[in-house]
């Protein structure tokens, strides 16, 4: 059983070896290096720790942050201020770290809830992280003698540690931090970060509270940056507003970008390399060195967006995936799909739902009940409002008025991830997947709502409900489990998204053209699966479909939308024979009644 994930174990083994070697290196280095370099490296280690948090936020999760310097500054100033004004003692040192971390967490919580509210654009998040260091530096400036204003604080008493000891402390801090973040980003929980970077809205519709994840991440990053700042101030016995400033925050980004975002090791090496070489070269080539760095930085961003790391890494992530594939394919663990009880409550209940953009009315007064076990097809010409209706059912912020009840729960203004908790599963019209994740990883993201993912490990099995597993097998995706989604065909992406939605085990399934791009064979299998889900498992399935043959085969009920109104609601036969539908579809009427 254990060997089923032996590649991951191998990977772990080399990680342990690398970590042990790094610790030995840091252990002996002070005996071989001169005092100046030791001193420079202490600073570089702490900067690299902050750069690591920038990599987690930006490289992995896609949050471009200018603000990590502010947390570094908060940690540094809590040491500087307390040691300057209250004197140094062990008790004060503990108070200072507690205050530093506490303030950093509180600030990160506030900033995070401001920057990452549901529906915030990525740019807005960056704007807020840009404002943060400006506020922090202005507060320091306005502190007068208390904060030392623009000249900062220096020559306060601090720990009576030798340079070597600080070197070991900061070096070990960086190594352990790199070690644990490495484990974390490769765990199942870590792939959620990449999923957020790749496709935030898909995450929301898989029941993941993206804002919450981002806020937690920012708070943890703030803790690490504050500790690094605290150690910096204690070791160097100097603090200045620049360390909390926007320029330093941007410098951190440049180091991460040069080293290689999303690689962890790249940013660490990048920061160490640049900071050390800067401290030697800026003396000899004062402005030229900074100019060279600027030119390299621009070249890297334009020509090598992955940074320098891929040049030096022998095995790319891609290659690892292939290795894993050959050695031991991930096993799919089929579990029976949930059978929902036939309750008295309607699965979907819409009361007077309207949607308008300005004066343009897209949906007018839609009132509708759908029972569990029904397979309803929504048909109508383009622009009839079908997709808008699906959107209004799955996101509380979409409709202009009226109410939506899912399994008896009023969705109010709830965001999609809360609607998912009521039982919604939605497949988008365009294949909506995570390009950089493999098929297995994507499916696992879909299971995070039901199974809390591990922060340290990868599960050995992929648990999938029967229906999702059938879709995977029918479309050949079971042979592509370790393929990155970006390399799949359009039809396979469609199928993968459908499988992801089914893996959520929803009781209300909303499918916007689920079979577009599939072969007719695959379409038949999916038709059977959907029929079985509705009849046996008592799911409520709502389908937007243009292929009217498919609609005739599987639907238990057809609703015709036209210009934002329900014009017909009945059985397949009733709709096929309706004169009204023929007029609406005019040319299309042949295809709906063509075979009768």
């Amino acid at each position, binding site marked *: 059983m254990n060997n089923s994930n032996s590649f991951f174990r191998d990977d772990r083994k080399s990680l342990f070896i690398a970590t042990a070697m790094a610790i030995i290196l840091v252990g002996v280095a002070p005996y071989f290096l001169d005092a100046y370099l030791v001193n420079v490296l202490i600073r570089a280690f702490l900067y690299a720790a902050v750069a690591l948090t920038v990599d987690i936020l930006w490289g992995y999760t896609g949050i*471009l942050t200018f603000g990590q310097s502010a947390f570094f500054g908060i940690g540094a100033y809590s040491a500087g201020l307390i040691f300057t004004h209250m004197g140094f003692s062990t008790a004060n040192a503990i108070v200072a770290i507690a205050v530093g971390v506490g303030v950093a967490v509180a600030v990160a919580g506030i900033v995070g809830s*401001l920057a990452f*509210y549901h529906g*915030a*654009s*990525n*740019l*807005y998040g*960056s*704007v*807020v992280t*840009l*404002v943060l260091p*400006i*506020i922090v530096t*202005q507060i320091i*400036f*306005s502190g007068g003698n208390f904060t030392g204003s623009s000249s900062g604080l220096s020559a306060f008493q601090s720990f009576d540690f030798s340079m070597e000891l600080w070197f070991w402390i900061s070096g070990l801090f960086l190594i352990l931090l790199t070690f644990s973040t490495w484990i974390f980003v490769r765990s199942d929980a870590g792939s959620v970060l990449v999923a957020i970077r790749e496709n935030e809205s898909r995450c929301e519709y898989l029941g993941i509270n993206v804002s919450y994840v981002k806020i937690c991440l920012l708070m943890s990053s703030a803790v690490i940056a504050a500790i690094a700042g605290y150690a910096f101030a204690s070791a160097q016995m100097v603090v200045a507003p620049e360390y909390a400033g*926007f*320029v330093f925050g*941007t410098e951190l*980004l*440049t180091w991460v*970008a040069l080293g290689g975002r999303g690689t962890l090791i790249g940013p660490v090496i990048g920061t160490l390399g640049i900071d050390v070489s800067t401290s030697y070269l800026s003396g000899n080539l004062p*402005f*030229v060195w*900074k*100019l060279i*760095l*600027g*030119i390299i*930085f*621009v070249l890297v*961003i*334009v*020509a090598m*967006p992955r940074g320098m790391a891929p040049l030096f890494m022998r095995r790319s992530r891609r290659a690892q995936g292939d290795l894993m594939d050959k050695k031991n394919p991930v096993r799919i663990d089929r579990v029976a799909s949930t059978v929902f009880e036939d309750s008295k409550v309607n699965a979907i209940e819409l009361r007077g739902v309207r949607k308008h953009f300005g004066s343009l009315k897209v949906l007018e007064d839609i009132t509708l009940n759908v029972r569990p076990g029904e397979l309803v097809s929504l048909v109508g010409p383009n622009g009839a409002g079908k997709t808008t209706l699906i959107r209004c059912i799955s996101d509380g912020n979409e409709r202009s008025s009226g109410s939506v009840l899912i399994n008896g729960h009023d969705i109010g203004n709830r965001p999609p991830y809360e609607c998912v908790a009521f039982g919604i599963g939605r497949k988008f019209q365009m294949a909506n997947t995570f390009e950089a994740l493999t098929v297995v990883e994507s499916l696992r993201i879909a299971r995070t709502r039901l199974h809390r993912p591990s922060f340290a490990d990868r599960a050995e099995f992929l648990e999938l409900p029967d229906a999702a597993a059938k879709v995977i097998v029918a479309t050949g995706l079971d042979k592509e489990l370790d393929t990155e989604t970006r390399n799949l065909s359009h039809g396979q992406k469609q199928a993968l998204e459908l499988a992801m939605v089914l893996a959520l085990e929803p009781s209300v399934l909303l499918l916007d053209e689920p079979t577009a791009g599939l072969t007719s064979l695959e379409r038949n299998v999916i038709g059977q699966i959907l029929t079985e889900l509705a009849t046996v498992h008592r799911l409520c399935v709502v389908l937007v479909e243009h292929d009217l043959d498919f609609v005739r085969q599987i639907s238990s009920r057809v609703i015709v939308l036209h210009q934002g109104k329900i014009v017909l609601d009945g059985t397949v036969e009733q709709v096929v024979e309706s004169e009204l539908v023929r007029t609406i579809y005019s040319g299309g009427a042949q295809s709906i009644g063509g075979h009768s």
Partner: protein
Amino acid sequence: MSILLDILTTAAILYVVAAGLMIIFGVMKIINFAHGGFLTVGGYSTLIGTMIGLNVWSVLLMAFGTGFFFGLLIERFVVRPLYSRPLDAILATWGLGIILGQVITIVFGREVQVVPSPISGASELFGVSYSQYRLILVIAALIIAGGLTLLLGKTRLGLETRAVIMNETLARALGINSSLVRLITFSLGAALASLAGALITPLSSVDPNMGVPWLINAFMLVMVSGVSFMSLAIACLVLGGAQVLVSTYANPVLGGMTIAVLAALMLRLRPKGFARE
């Protein structure tokens, strides 16, 4: 009375500084973090122009031309490959700002240099005596706003630019050379930044980092303004006014962060900011 003039002239200065950033953001959806660098370029153009004894108009024209030239080069070689990566464009243009700043430092040294103002002294207005140069900047802001509105509303290029703003794919399909529109937009934005640098030089002084403090405020103003020159004017008046009031009645240091904080809060409550749509 004098505080009202302070508000008006501060808003005008902010408008002049932010206009170049806004046209680039509006058309290209790219935030030009080299904006500060272009302001500095304008400052040093003024320094050189004044030293070799050019008249005021030639100095301004030279600043505009220098900015335009650098804009052309940078758009072609750095910004164009980053169209599809707007967040990377922020970083790359920030790097360009560093390069501009360092080149200027190497050529001119890092010292602060003072350029004499072409117009000094005060004039009587509404019973108070007020810096003439600041009043002239209000006129300059009006001229820039008028010029841009005419350019966008009355010329063929303006029409094509508006088409690119609304729907670039469609515009391209209709035969509009959107690369050219982008090239000209970026260069014009850089030229306006450089012109702004020239205009603010007499108020402060010239040093290699003179543009950076302006960058954040300009950026925040553009964020709350959308793509309209009118809403930028309103944003400059409201937020610039708030800055003047906070600096005067509370604390100049708090005044320094007023625009950034208010803009961030405003975007939270109303993501469109001052824009109507």
